[in-house]
């Protein structure tokens, strides 16, 4: 417990491992939506994101004893979800994502909003044509607002490697968005 009375991730993880399975719902409530936007952007639809989050949560429970830092459950869970997203991308490829793209960019009402919606869709279509790794770094930096240093820490890679990936993504996006 922290001083506010909210149980820390570590204490919840330990409670679950001690046999109090229902405590896992605390972690589900806490993290079910935190990375939903990331998953939706990676997979191209909210439905696919929901499947991925569900599966990652069940997997996190199954392997909970292997969570080396219970107080960093969030970071560990993110890696599991990330893997699910990459695996799902491999299975579905981008063709099916394009059919569902509208689900991420929800319909809007006004004319200018519709125009913007088209621009947003154009970028999302282009994002889906990047490699999963390029797309991920773009999403984490520009959608989730993380710095290169934060992304590097989360993915156990170097800032230089991430920048190279991102800069290739910029060029590829330009090719895709400016293509006739």
């Amino acid at each position, binding site marked *: 417990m922290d001083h506010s009375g909210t149980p820390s991730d570590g204490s919840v993880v330990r409670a679950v491992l001690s046999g109090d399975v229902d405590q896992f719902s605390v972690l589900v409530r806490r993290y079910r*939506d935190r990375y*939903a936007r990331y998953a939706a952007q990676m997979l191209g639809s909210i439905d696919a*994101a929901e499947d991925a989050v569900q599966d990652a949560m069940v997997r996190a*429970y199954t392997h909970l004893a292997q969570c080396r830092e219970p107080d960093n459950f969030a970071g560990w869970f993110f890696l599991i979800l990330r893997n699910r997203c990459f695996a799902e991308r491999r299975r579905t490829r981008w063709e099916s994502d394009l059919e569902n793209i509208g689900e991420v960019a929800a319909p809007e009402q006004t004319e200018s909003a519709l125009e913007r919606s088209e621009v947003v869709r154009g970028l999302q279509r282009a994002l889906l044509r990047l490699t999963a790794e390029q797309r991920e770094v773009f999403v984490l930096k520009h*959608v989730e607002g993380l710095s290169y240093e934060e992304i590097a820490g989360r993915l156990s890679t170097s800032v230089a490697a991430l920048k190279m990936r991102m800069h290739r993504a910029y060029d590829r996006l330009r090719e895709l968005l400016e293509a006739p």
Partner: protein
Amino acid sequence: MKNRHWSDQVKQVLDGERELESLPPELRREAETARRLLLAAIDRRPVTLSAALETRIMTRVRGRATARWPRAWRWLLAPTLPRWAMLVPAAAAAALVLVLRTPQVDQSGKPQAMTGQRDSVYVRFELYAPRASRVALAGTFNRWDAAATPLVRVGKDGMWTVTLALPSGQHQYGFIVDGRNWVPDPAAPAVDDGFGRRNSVVSVNTINGRIL
């Protein structure tokens, strides 16, 4: 195609590491285009998943909860072995014949009973090399020592052979003909050795006494 690549300074602006105003005038327009195309179109609205998600997850979690830890403890303490563990023989032994001309792969799946050291499997290596004056075997199992495991010529038809007890795991190897020519085993899978050649691979699995 090169015209479609942003300049490095523009990429720095996109990365938030450089102010647009610091760019020379000819690059500002490019940077503004880049921002409009890439950054202004980003949808950052939060995503909320369905209300039923938690119930679905917890239903599956509770379904898996039964006997996760008890199962582990049963494995440690119970008098009977779990199914897969029963497949581990104390002295598993089998023979694999790797032959140049006619690969003889154990299709029956029944290991040939031979006495071997604990958790090891006898593997017989054969090479057809009629013109060789000597043949040796080197691999991860003998520290790649080219002198450690000579093959013996069998009969007069050019077949060389040696039988080794290999521990469980994966082993890479090659034949050395006449002390200088490295030859992969044509009857075994092979992988790049990192030096521009191929290593043969044998996987010994003593879980069921069978060789992959």
